[in-house]
């Protein structure tokens, strides 16, 4: 077998692939698009590990806290840096105030020089956001002049919001707030990349779910126009090519589509890479340059895809003997057996089973087991479906003529019918499982924080030294703030906080005016000067034990410097009060004091906390409060509470997934249409003779509909069953409560059904055209 002969035969096949006129082209292009999608997804897949790696490395390289045990001493090579993160709408902004202390101070990655005070260097995404129309509130919070952009090396993603602003006197914030002195950035011993196992699972499942239907589609696509090809091959046999040659020519035809697909796939990938640079998924975005598949893997894809196409063709031809006078299919295949078909999905479940419950708690999923399991389960559909169709169709009883025609046809060729539907079933099952997983994980991520929204949605810590009442007033005057509750909070211990082990018992101290105190406890009466002790709950029930008149309690010192104990002696007659879940989602314990009851010495040891209720009906309601907080304390990052974190990231990824699945379904639909039309044309003569003896067009149209609808209906049922089961297992694996997301199940199934309907509707005009009696003429 010479190489030349091989290449000659394959080349002949390639020529045939495009020689079939318009239909030949459509087939080749459809195959190519399918292969192209597969290649693009594969290339993206091979690029993901490196992208995650690059991201992680960048993250490690810009870490800005000292890794040694001690902060370096001030020198001309040091820098003081303070966190000034903020949040705008749902997006986190990474903010840093920097103050170089000398000419050799380390530059943060991505910066070419330090911004002067009042200037800032921003990420491209933040620059864009600041310039946007609706961002006035953010500009108010970041009133610095933009003097440059952070380079790619200083960001972990194209969509990251970040800024570095020049500042002075940061060193004074080194106590209490997050200012730090550094002489270098980055972790000197970079940690190993440590991806969230759930995220990794999601990525793996997404890839498998997108790839599988494409693979099934390719497998079906290379068989497009099978009957016509068979005839062509038979003609080749007649003029003297041997069996092997014909097979090679057939393989060449398949390869043509695959090669064109490789080209398309590369284009898709390049386009997709640019698109990937502009989207953000779960708060993660990447630069197009991150998506750089390793050359070895890319080469593997380039070789494996055409090879797979050729192998599928040869596999499909194994039961076919091409004779010079036509194609003989080896005798009617034996009845399909169930047992080995069940092995595939069962094997898949067996691979996934050991990982159930590993989820958030103990880490890593075995990537191979996950992918293998999911693949086996999805491939299992393609094995089960032919059996299911055959079994069900074999049992379908009689009905009208249309029904009988459809059922009989399916009985005779259930394999073809199942093959056409396989892709849709796999796509739908995968999408359902994935949607369930997303919905479940989504649910976990947006779990209720339990905050009583009638009271507070935001908490701001008042910086030391700022007057509480005046600060509270500032917030009260802020737009969209409907209620302000100001409390001082501190801790009491039963022995010195400076002792070696600290106090045995400790409890909270909350100071505030009567209306504020009533937010945290049920008080029968209250006037200034009153004190209360709270019953608390299981977390902080030490209060009553410490309420021993005459007992000396130590107030927790603030900061690290002060070491002198401040004591408070428990007076007699403190009223017991019942604590309520108030501003926070926990019941407070410990002591409540009205302001005049607080010992003067303790005043500096309590921290002011302001709890804000926000009127969410005001657009950008939170941003006003955040701006006020910024003015009060530029380094404060208000704590946000809300009942469910509105997580739009998952919504986008889920709708993206829906769109992706819909595209795959459309592609499969297009191929369904092509083969449907092909079948119709082959039956042209029969159809016209049926019309001749008076068959209603409606009857024939209905039989075409049934013929598609029955296998698709079965396919969708199977897909729903498998999809929900797989989704449940994946959720169990992530230790998330199992819930079926019926909306997505129905929408995916609906998509599948819509495709069938569309295909039937689109094939009706050609059918009616075929049904014209002219069909009898051409002989």
């Amino acid at each position, binding site marked *: 077998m010479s190489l030349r002969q091989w290449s000659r035969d394959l080349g002949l096949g390639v020529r045939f692939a495009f020689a079939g006129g318009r239909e030949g082209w459509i087939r080749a292009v459809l195959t190519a698009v399918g292969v192209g999608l597969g290649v693009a997804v594969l290339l993206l897949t091979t690029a993901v590990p490196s992208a995650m790696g690059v991201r992680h490395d960048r993250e490690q390289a810009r870490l800005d806290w000292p890794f040694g045990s001690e902060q370096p001493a001030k020198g001309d090579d040091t820098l003081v840096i303070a966190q000034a993160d903020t949040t705008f709408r749902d997006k986190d902004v990474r903010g840093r105030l920097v103050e170089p202390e000398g000419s050799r101070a380390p530059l943060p990655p991505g910066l070419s020089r330090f911004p002067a005070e009042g200037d800032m260097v921003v990420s491209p995404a933040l620059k864009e956001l600041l310039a946007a129309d609706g961002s006035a509130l953010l500009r108010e919070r970041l009133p610095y002049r933009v003097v440059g952009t952070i380079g790619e090396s200083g960001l972990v993603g194209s969509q990251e919001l970040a800024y570095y602003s020049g500042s002075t006197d940061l060193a004074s914030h080194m106590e209490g707030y997050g200012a730090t002195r550094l002489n270098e950035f980055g972790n000197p011993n970079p940690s190993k990349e440590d991806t969230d196992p759930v995220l990794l699972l999601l990525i793996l499942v997404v890839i498998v779910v997108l790839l599988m239907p494409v693979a099934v589609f390719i497998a079906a696509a290379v068989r497009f126009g099978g009957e016509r090809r068979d005839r062509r091959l038979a003609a080749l046999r007649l003029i003297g090519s041997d069996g092997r040659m014909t097979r090679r020519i057939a393989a060449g035809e398949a390869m043509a589509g695959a090669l064109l697909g490789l080209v398309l796939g590369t284009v898709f990938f390049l386009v997709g890479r640019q698109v990937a640079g502009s989207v953000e998924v779960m708060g993660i975005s990447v630069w197009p340059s991150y998506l750089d598949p390793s050359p070895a893997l890319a080469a593997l894809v380039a070789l494996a895809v055409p090879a797979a196409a050729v192998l599928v063709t040869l596999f499909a031809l194994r039961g076919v003997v091409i004779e010079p006078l036509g194609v003989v299919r080896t005798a009617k295949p034996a009845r399909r057996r169930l047992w080995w078909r069940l092995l595939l999905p069962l094997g898949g479940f067996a691979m996934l089973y050991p990982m159930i419950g590993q989820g958030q708690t103990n880490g890593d999923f075995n990537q191979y087991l996950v992918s293998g399991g999911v693949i086996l389960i999805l491939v299992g559909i393609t094995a089960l479906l032919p059996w299911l169709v055959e079994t069900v169709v074999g049992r379908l009883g009689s009905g009208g*003529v249309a029904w009988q025609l459809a059922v009989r046809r399916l009985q005779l060729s259930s394999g073809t019918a199942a093959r056409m539907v396989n892709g849709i079933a796999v796509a739908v099952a995968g999408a359902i499982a994935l949607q369930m997983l997303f919905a479940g994980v989504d649910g976990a991520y947006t779990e209720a924080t339990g905050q009583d929204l009638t009271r507070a949605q935001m908490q701001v810590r008042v910086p030391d030294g700022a007057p509480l009442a005046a600060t509270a007033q500032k917030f009260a005057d802020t737009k969209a703030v409907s209620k302000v509750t100001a409390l001082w909070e501190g801790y009491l211990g039963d022995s010195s906080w400076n002792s070696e082990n600290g106090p045995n018992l400790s409890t909270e101290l909350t100071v505030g005016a009567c209306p504020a105190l009533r937010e945290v406890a049920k008080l029968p009466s209250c006037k200034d000067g009153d004190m209360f002790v709270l019953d608390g709950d299981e977390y902080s029930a030490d209060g009553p034990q410490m309420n021993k008149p005459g007992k000396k309690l130590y107030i927790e010192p603030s900061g690290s410097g002060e070491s002198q104990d401040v004591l408070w002696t428990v007076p007699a007659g403190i009223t017991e009060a019942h604590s309520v879940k108030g501003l926070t989602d926990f019941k407070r314990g410990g002591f409540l004091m009205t302001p005049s009851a607080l010992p003067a010495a303790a005043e500096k040891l309590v921290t002011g906390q302001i709890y804000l209720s926000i009127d969410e009906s005001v657009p950008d309601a939170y941003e006003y409060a955040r701006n006020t907080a910024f003015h009060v304390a530029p380094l404060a990052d208000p704590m946000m509470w809300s009942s469910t974190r509105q997580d739009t990231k998952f919504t986008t990824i889920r709708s993206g997934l829906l769109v992706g699945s819909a595209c795959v379904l459309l592609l499969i639909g297009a191929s369904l249409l092509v083969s449907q039309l092909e079948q119709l044309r082959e039956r042209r003569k*029969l159809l016209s*003779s049926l019309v001749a003896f*008076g068959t209603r067009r409606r009857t024939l149209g209905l039989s075409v509909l049934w013929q598609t609808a029955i296998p698709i209906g079965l396919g969708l049922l199977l897909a729903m069953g498998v999809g929900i089961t797989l989704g449940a297992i994946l959720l169990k694996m992530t230790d998330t409560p199992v819930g079926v997301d019926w909306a997505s199940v129905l929408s995916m199934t609906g998509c599948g059904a819509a495709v069938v309907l569309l295909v039937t509707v689109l094939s009706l005009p050609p059918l009616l055209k075929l049904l014209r009696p002219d069909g009898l003429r051409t002989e």
Partner: protein
Amino acid sequence: MNAPGGSLLAAENLHKAYGPTMALAGAEFSIHPGEVVAVMGPSGSGKSTLLHCLAGIVTPDSGSIMYDGRELATMSDARRSELRRSEFGFVFQFGQLVPELTCVENVALPLRLNGTPRKQAERTALSWMERLEVDDLGKKRPGEVSGGQGQRVAVARSLVTSPRVVFADEPTGALDSLNGERVMELLTEAARSASTAVVLVTHEARVAAYSDREIVVRDGKSRDMERVI
């Protein structure tokens, strides 16, 4: 006029063009109940078009076709389809049996299209298959029987509704002479005994010899050979 009195189906001055091709240019035809008329002529002469017009499958561009006192050319498509279902039968050269249905289901199909319940339709079908000596093929599919057997099944199907006219377009075209003659024998015998008229399009003289009368179509015009002599 040319349509003799008492004819079941008569056509006058039929014209039909397919694009620039004149398939019929003034053709005429008539047939009596129970009569077997052969339509002959070279290929492309328009004999199949004549049959399609007569059977209401194709509407002529002009001319009249009277069936049993009714004008066929102006009937609605639905009405003509119904007529074809109930009063006409059809046999074609090949490719007319639905490959997925068994032979008996194929024969029963026209009855089922008319709304006869399945059991009853298949009983009637079987009795016709018996007359055409193919009742042993009931459970087989068309792909599993020989050409001659398949054609006999097709003949059984054309007769199963006891139609008044059977249109047979080259019914033996794909058969060898022995099988072809057997099919013709059975067809004409069954038709005569049920006084079904048969319009037989053929190019084979020996098949045409089973007819009572012959019409030759040339260049879209018909010629009744009985009136030649």
